Structure formats: structure tokens, C-alpha cells
């Protein structure tokens, strides 16, 4: 049951095959079992059970609120949750309990979704591995999958069990792991440069980054205001569309959300892609792209072509400048956004109090990790009067060029761009941390961050398993506010590839009693 999609479990709930409380309890049990993944920072057991009970009543009355009523979900720990600790995985906010809900959280709760907890991330969402959290790294559930385990080379197996575990990607690694492992049916992430799509790809789930301005950022603790969007992680494209329908729309508390009414949609089962034009950006053949990812990308293009779609090579000429430009803009906004964490109104405050300046300096030094401090330092450097033109203004100009690249492509025939999501499959933790956060971010975000610069919608769909038995995702990029078309293409692709279900074993399996029935349930009870 825990392996079902949101749409499937929603049907089960409506049919009374399972009650929200029963489902909630199962998820809670499994969260405990899967504790070693470190996907959750806070598990809101009591609140979840209370919410589930409310959902029970509604189902008994035959008046559920919608698809999400009674469905367990998780929220990245950089969304403010009223009465629930919200840490951003930082010492700076440890113990901080927001007095209000982020609009995204509120909308989910209003639909009856049951919040299981707050998920782990890189500190303040700065990272691409979910390895830089004060609560420790998140482990990729695929580390414990049968597909991966059976392909591990014998010599590696001789090493300690733990040395083989994989990173989730980041920064929404906790949310990706939570959805992938089966502790919840959907999760909120945030996506500034790929933070939703990257871990989704590495964990074999769907990761949607909607158009900037479609979803409210109110209550999302910002990384880069001009690029942040709430991200959606689910086990299927249909599920992503359902969650999007719940979340999208204008919010009077966020002046950057668009005023236009959002029409929620359901994706048809029969999809015709023959009228689509798929663009393959030449510049995305980046160095470091794994051989098998290139092959997968090529096979995907062929799939569309075979189905009658027009597939053409396109050019996004400024792609090469994107990641540098992204870092300048990102760090500048980070420097500004982090200024509020001074230890006065909330958050970590040091013991030093002989002067206000000393208090600021020590609180911030103690409260932030090296990555955050490094970005603040460089961001402030870029914003200095003497440097502003050289860095910030220039980066903004390049950003415009990058956005124009996309505009140009989309104003020709092209409907959707097809690209890899990541260079390769997930790296083992021991490998991953050999490079610093900045280097890894530059590598991992290579295909994802330019979409944020342009504000466009993009979705990663699990496409195949790598030679090592790990998920590989492909990314679809759409026109601004054309989520429906984008998700249609994604769903069609999803139907074609039949990505295999994760089969957990090993450490996780041995701890688990509830798990076997789950696999069986999924294998033998396809829900209509």
C-alpha cells in the first residue's frame, strides 16, 4: 500500500479500502523503520494522527475534501509551519517555531492532506547532495534497493555496509527520499537551481518545478527570491498534476504571484504526442555527462520521434555562462536574505554580549555552516559599490540573455525541450564529499539552474536504471505557464518507459515487517 501513487491511494481511501488513520499509522511506522535514511528532521506524529482522524470523519460522512484528503505528505523543512519547528537544517534556526503557515502548507492542510513531518535538506537549501545538514546527510533509499545491491562489485561489498550508501542529491533530498521510500505520497521541495529536480532524479521520483509566479513563496524561507519556487515531488506525473492543482494560484501575500486564475487539470490516459515539437538543446551535451545518460537521452528522443513527434536540435547559446551567472546572483541574494539572522528577534544567539557587533558576528559564525558563510561573503563582495556593475549587473544581463535563449526557441516551433536532469546517477556519499559544496553544486545544477534563471516550468521523470541499478531522470522544460502541455508530454514518456519500482532490501528490509506486504500489494493489486 505504501508504494501506491497518490492517485491510487486516494481511490483506495474513497473506496474505504483503508482509512486515513490506518494509512497514517502505517506511514508513521515506516518512517520509524526507515529512520536510517534521515529523511525527516521532525516527524509530527501526534498532529498527523489528529489530522487523519479529522479526515476519517469526512470520509465516513462521505464528504472528503478532494484527492489529497487523508493522504500523508511531507514538507521540506524550509517551509514555515505554524507550531512546528522549522530549522532549514541550520543551527541558526534550531528551535525556531514559526507562528504561521506558509501558503503552500496551508493549502495542503486545507485540502485535508496529513502532514507527516518536515524533511531534511542542505542547510538553507544550499547544496546539491543533502549532505550539508546539521542533522546529518540524507541517504538515498536506492542504496538499499535490490537493483543496486545485487550489482555492487564484490570488493566493495567487503567494506563496511555503510560505505556504499548513496547521496540523494539536493537540496530537497529529504523530500525525495521520503517519497521514494514510501513514507508519504507527495512532498514539497523547493527549487532554486534544481533543488527539487536533482534529488527527484537521483531518487527515481517525479520532480516538478512550476513556472515562477504560479505558486506562492509566502512562508518559504528564501534562498534566492527571484528564482525560488516551491517544488512538487511525487511518484507519478499524474500525482504532480494533482498537487499542482491544489497549490497553484495567486496569493495576496506574495506580490510576485500572477493574478491570472489557474485552471487545474487532469491528464488524460491516452496522449497523442504526434503534434508536439521536441527540442534537443545542443549545448546540453556537457562535459562530464555520463555515456549511459547520453544514450538514455537519445533513446527518449527516438521514442518521441517514433510516436510521430517532431524532434529537432536547437541551440541555447548562452547556456555555458549560466552556472557562473547563477552563482553571482544566488550569492548576492543570499547575502541579503541572510542578513536578518542576527540572533535578536529569533534564532541562534551566542553567549557573547559585550557589544551588538560582537553579538552579531558570533551568532552568525556559530549559527551558519561554512557553505552559508562562504556564500554570504562572496555575495556581499559582489554587491559592494565598486563591484556591483562588474558582477551583479553583468550577471543580470547574462540572465536576460539566457531567458531570451529560451524565449527564442519557444517562439519557433518548439513546444518542449528534452534534456538530462543530471550528469549521471547518484554518487556514493564517500565519493560525493571528495569535492566541496560549490564544485558539486556547479556540476549537479548544470542542466537545471538555467530554467530557474528563465523562470520556466520543468519536470524530471524517472527514465531508466543505470548500469549500477540506480535511477536516471530526464528533464522536460516547457513554456512559461504551460504546465499542462509539459506534464502531458512527461506523462506520455512515463507511460512508455515503465520505470521499475524500488524494491528495498538489506538493512532497511531486515528492520521492516510492514514492507513485504507493501511490495506484494503493489505487485499483485494494481488499483484500477
Amino acid at each position: 500500500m505504501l508504494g501506491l501513487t497518490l492517485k491510487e491511494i486516494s481511490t483506495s481511501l474513497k473506496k474505504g479500502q483503508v482509512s486515513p488513520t490506518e494509512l497514517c499509522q502505517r506511514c508513521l511506522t515506516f518512517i520509524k523503520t526507515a529512520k536510517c535514511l534521515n529523511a525527516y528532521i521532525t516527524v509530527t506524529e501526534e498532529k498527523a494522527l489528529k489530522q487523519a482522524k479529522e479526515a476519517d470523519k469526512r470520509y465516513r460522512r462521505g464528504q472528503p475534501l478532494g484527492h489529497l484528503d487523508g493522504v500523508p505528505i511531507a514538507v521540506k523543512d524550509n517551509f514555515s509551519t505554524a507550531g512546528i519547528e522549522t530549522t532549514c537544517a541550520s543551527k541558526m534556526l534550531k528551535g525556531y517555531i514559526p507562528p504561521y503557515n506558509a501558503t503552500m502548507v496551508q493549502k495542503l492542510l486545507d485540502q485535508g492532506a496529513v502532514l507527516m513531518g518536515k524533511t531534511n535538506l542542505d542547510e538553507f537549501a544550499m547544496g546539491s547532495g543533502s549532505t550539508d545538514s546539521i542533522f546529518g546527510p540524507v541517504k538515498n533509499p536506492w542504496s538499499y534497493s535490490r537493483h543496486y545491491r545485487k550489482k555492487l562489485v564484490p570488493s566493495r561489498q567487503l567494506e563496511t555496509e555503510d560505505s556504499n550508501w548513496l547521496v540523494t542529491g539536493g537540496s530537497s533530498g529529504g523530500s525525495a527520499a521520503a517519497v521514494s521510500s514510501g513514507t508519504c505520497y507527495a512532498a514539497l521541495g523547493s527549487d532554486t537551481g534544481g533543488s527539487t529536480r536533482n534529488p527527484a532524479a537521483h531518487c527515481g521520483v517525479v520532480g516538478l518545478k512550476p513556472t515562477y509566479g504560479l505558486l506562492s513563496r509566502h512562508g518559504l524561507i528564501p534562498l534566492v527570491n527571484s528564482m525560488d519556487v516551491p517544488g512538487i515531488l511525487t511518484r507519478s506525473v499524474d500525482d504532480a498534476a494533482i498537487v499542482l492543482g491544489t497549490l497553484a494560484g495567486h496569493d495576496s501575500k506574495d506580490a510576485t504571484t500572477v493574478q491570472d486564475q489557474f485552471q487545474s487539470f487532469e491528464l488524460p490516459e491516452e496522449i497523442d504526442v504526434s503534434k508536439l515539437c521536441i527540442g534537443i538543446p545542443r549545448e546540453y551535451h556537457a562535459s562530464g555527462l555520463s555515456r549511459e545518460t547520453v544514450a538514455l537521452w537519445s533513446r527518449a528522443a527516438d521514442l518521441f520521434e517514433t510516436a510521430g513527434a517532431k524532434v529537432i536540435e536547437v541551440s541555447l547559446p548562452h547556456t555555458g555562462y549560466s552556472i557562473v551567472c547563477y552563482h553571482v546572483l544566488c550569492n548576492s541574494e543570499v547575502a541579503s536574505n541572510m542578513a536578518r539572522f542576527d540572533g535578536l528577534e529569533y534564532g541562534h544567539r551566542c553567549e557573547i554580549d559585550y557589544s551588538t557587533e560582537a553579538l552579531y558576528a558570533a551568532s552568525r559564525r556559530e549559527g551558519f555552516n561554512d557553505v552559508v558563510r562562504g556564500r554570504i561573503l562572496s555575495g556581499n563582495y559582489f554587491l559592494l559599490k565598486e563591484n556591483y556593475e562588474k558582477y551583479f549587473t553583468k550577471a543580470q544581463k547574462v540572465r536576460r540573455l539566457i531567458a531570451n535563449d529560451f524565449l527564442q526557441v519557444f517562439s519557433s516551433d518548439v513546444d518542449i525541450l528534452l534534456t538530462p536532469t543530471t550528469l549521471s546517477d547518484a554518487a556514493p556519499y564517500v565519493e560525493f564529499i571528495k569535492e566541496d559544496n560549490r564544485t558539486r553544486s556547479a556540476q549537479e545544477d548544470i542542466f537545471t539552474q538555467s530554467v530557474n534563471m528563465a523562470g520556466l516550468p520543468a519536470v524530471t521523470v524517472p527514465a531508466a536504471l543505470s548500469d549500477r541499478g540506480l535511477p536516471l531522470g530526464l528533464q522536460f522544460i516547457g513554456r512559461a505557464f504551460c504546465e499542462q502541455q509539459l506534464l502531458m508530454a512527461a506523462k506520455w514518456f512515463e507511460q512508455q518507459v515503465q520505470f521499475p519500482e524500488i524494491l528495498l532490501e538489506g538493512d532497511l528490509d531486515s528492520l521492516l515487517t510492514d514492507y513485504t506486504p507493501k511490495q506484494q500489494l503493489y505487485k499483485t493489486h494494481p488499483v484500477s
Partner: protein
Amino acid sequence: MTLTSRTVMAAPRQCCCYAGMLLWLSQRGAGAFAPRYRGVKPVSVLMSQARCTQTDTSTKRAVTAQVDLGDSAVPWKAVVGLEIHAQISSNSKLFSRAQVQFAAPPNSLVSFFDASLPGTLPVLNRRCVEAAVMTGLALNCRINRKSLFDRKHYFYADLPAGYQITQQRLPIAVNGTLTYRIKTGKKWNQMATRTVRIKQIQLEQDSGKSLHDEEKSQTLIDLNRAGVGLMELVMEPDMCCGEEAAAAVRELQLILLALGSSQANMSEGQLRVDANISVHRPGESYGVRTEVKNINSARFLAKAIDYEIQRQIEELERGGVILNETRSFDYKLGITMPMRDKEGKQDYRFMPEPNLPPLIVYDSRSLPPSVDPQQVVNIDLIQERLPELPATCRERLVEQYGILPEHSYTLVNEDGLMQFFESVLKVTQVEPKKVVGWVINDLLGHLKLQNLTVKDSRISPSTLAELLTLLENGKISSTVAKQVFQELWEDEGKSPSQIVAEKNLQLITDRKKLEEIINKIMEEHPEEVIQIRKGQKKILNKLIGLVQRATKGQADPVLVKTILEEKLS
């Protein structure tokens, strides 16, 4: 409630619960920003006042601060520019729904945004935009159809976000002018018109307040003011002395009050004026300027500027240099002192505010058809609804009532006086010219003497009207009228007619009675009678005065004169 640093530190700080609570932080650090007395002796008045002398009335006015410093023959020119922060009069703050109110309990008007809780976003208050547009129009500014918001970064305890949202690159209004009048001589009619250019008006957030507790060595933070909307008006350095600056600020206050865009009360901090001051020799380029802050009245503004001009001249005469520094005005000592060094040279690291789209204002032609009028700001609509501004008001008063321009100034410049004047006129036929004298000399005189404002007046417009009608209709003499006015001022309960009746103050018009009195006086002053008969007509006035004294000013002056002339011819 008093919180010591210890107790607050020990308390778990999870989220924000602000009501009635003060945040604290160490005093010593914040003290670094506080004014420092750095060996500045209270140099009392060892210099003459700088005076504004107009030497040229053409567009490029050269105004000289002529300073008599004994042996120094070459005059200095002073240049004064102002930066004015006017708190916008609005129900809620610039970017949040928290209420705006003066002197509310500390931290009782703080939204999550004002406390800069993570994840909160600014939402622009339309009322504040309208106030700025209104003010811009009243000051002849060009209203930018598109303006932008920026973040200005600095760390300070009462700035919780670590940055202020302001309009650095593209403000809402630019290129305006403010015309004001200034006394050039002792007399009221010696006035000159001056114009100061308004460089720009920008919308920005106010900061919170830091309250330094020296004894406990801690600073308490009140965020009630944090996020309140401000209009920063930048005036070009077109002024040359304290008096000019004070007059310009006074005129601005009147305009803001008329518009209702700000309460503009300096002592309550709704209007904060910083002055940029420099001096130079005629023909040379401008000198190094200093910025004087901490000025809380127009009077002190004039004093602070004049002091600073003198100080700079003295310094330069002595061969010293002027530092580009911020100075604070000490109103008790009447001097300016260095405030904080700009040695660290603040770099505000300006950056576009990413959470606010460009601010677009429309006119009737550019207004998109489908848009909800409640959601946008229409310049034309605001222009139409602009109230009568002080300058127009004065012109109207002169034209409509035939009063003197200087009287129109007093009526408009004294808060509520014009309304009082016009209320009197509504209920009496007495000529406005006569009324204005009573309002300005008697009413305002009494108010000023007791430091009262017009709304505190003990005499209502209708009472004054009644009194003046009695005078006009010849029921009482003007001497009696003054007496009754005094009685009314001291005893609020009675009407003028009551007082006149009770004290028997009616005009004596009984010819027989007057003749008796006159005869008696003529008998007592034979010398004067002879001189008048010899042709010295002026002496007649003395006798008239004696008659009035004898009747306590109640005698009908016309009748007295007639009888006397008859008897002495």
C-alpha cells in the same frame, strides 16, 4: 514590564510574541552609534548670526550668508540642502497590515513581516503610494509611471531584516519645486519668495526604535515604528541659512497637512529633517559638507544650521578643514557635535528588491481597461481630488476677503486659524478686514501668550462674531469690546451680550448725559479750552480722551466729538 538582560537571555526564544514585550540587546555595542561628546566645548555665542541677504532675484539666485567676523573682510557663502523624512499618515504600514499609531505600548504593532520572520514577504500598501503621488503632485514633481524598490543593507538592532526597502534607483517622484516666503526685514510686509528644487521623493520603510538604558547597559528595541511608510524628500542645496530652511520646512509641513499625506509633526518624529551644510568663498566651488541630524523643531533647524555655518566659517578662517561627517544638534547647548565617524565608510550594498514587482502608476489614458480601479493608482484621479494647497489658499483669502497678504500668511500658517477666521465670517456681517485684525492681534496674541493652539482657544468663532457684531452695530465702543474680549477669555461661561448687560457697558448715546460730563471736563481744563479756541484743534483729542476715561470708554465717540466741537466753536 521591566526585563533585565539576564532574565531575557535565559528565557527560551522560540518564536515571536511581541505584544507588550521589549527586546533587549547589549548597550555597549549600540552605544558606538550614540552621539559622542568629543572635546567640543560649548562655544557659546562668540559669533554673530548669519543673515540671509538677497543680492539677486534672477533664476540663479546668489544668496550670501554675510558674516561679520571682525577682521575677515571676504564674505562666505553658505549652501544648505535638506533630506526630509515624512512619515506617511496611513492606517497600516508600508508593506504589512500592522497598524500605525504614535505612542502605542512597545512592540504591540508588529506583524510577522515587521519582525522580519523568515519567509515573510512585503505587500505594498496602496494608500502609501497614493500619499507619495499626492505629495509629488503638490510639489510639482514628475511622477514616474514606473518606479523600483531596492534593499539598502546595514546591520542595526532596530532594523530587523538587516536591510531597509527603499527606492534608490528609480523613485516615485522627481524634479519638483517648493515655493515659500521668507521675511527679509523686521516688518511683516518685507517678504521675499524663494524656491527650492525637490530632487526626488522616494518611498521607504521606517526603522524601529532603540531605547538605550545607560544604567543597565542594555538597549531595548521597539518595533512599532518598524516598517511604517516614509516619504524621503531630497531638497537640492538651494538654501543659504537656517531661516530659509526653516521657512521651507514650515511650508512643506503646511502642504503635507493640507494633503493629509503626513501629520508632519516634528516633535513626534513624523517629520525628520537632516541638513547638509557647507560654506565656500564666492566664485569657488562648494566646500566639504557636513550632515546635521537630530533636529526636532523648525526653530532648532534654523539654529542648528546657523550654528553649523558659523562653525565651518570659523574653522576655515582658523586654517582648519571641514570633515565630511555627520553631526548631531544638541538643543540644550545650541551646538552641533560629531556623531559617528564615516571612517568605516558604510557600503549599503544596494540590490533590487526581488519580492516586489516594479511599481506602476497609471493615468486615465494609460489605465488598462480590465483592471480593478481599487487595485491601481490613477494619477489623474489624485490630481483632481487634490485639496486646496496653502499658496492657493492665501491667494484666495486676499482676493475673497480683501485682506493683506501678510495676514493671509498668518491665517494659513497658524494651524486652524484660517478655519476660525472663516467661521467667524459665516455668522457675522462685519467686514473681513476688521475681523482679521481681531483674529490675528487679539485671539492669536492671547493664544501665543499662553502657548496655546487655535483649537485650545477659550473663545469660539461664534462668540467672537457676536462681540464684533455688537461693536459694528454701535452697541459698544472698541475699548469696551477689548474689555469684553478679556472677560470672555477669562470666564468662558458667558456671552458678550450678557457681559455687556451685566456690567452695563453699553455705549452712552444719551446727549444730555454726555453734555453734563463734557461740561464738567471743560470746567476742569480751562487752559486746553482756550488753546482749542485759539485754533489748536489737536488738543481736542485730549479732551475726547478725558471724556472716554470718565465714561470708562463707553461714550459714543462720534457724539462726544460733535458736542465738543459745538461747544468749542
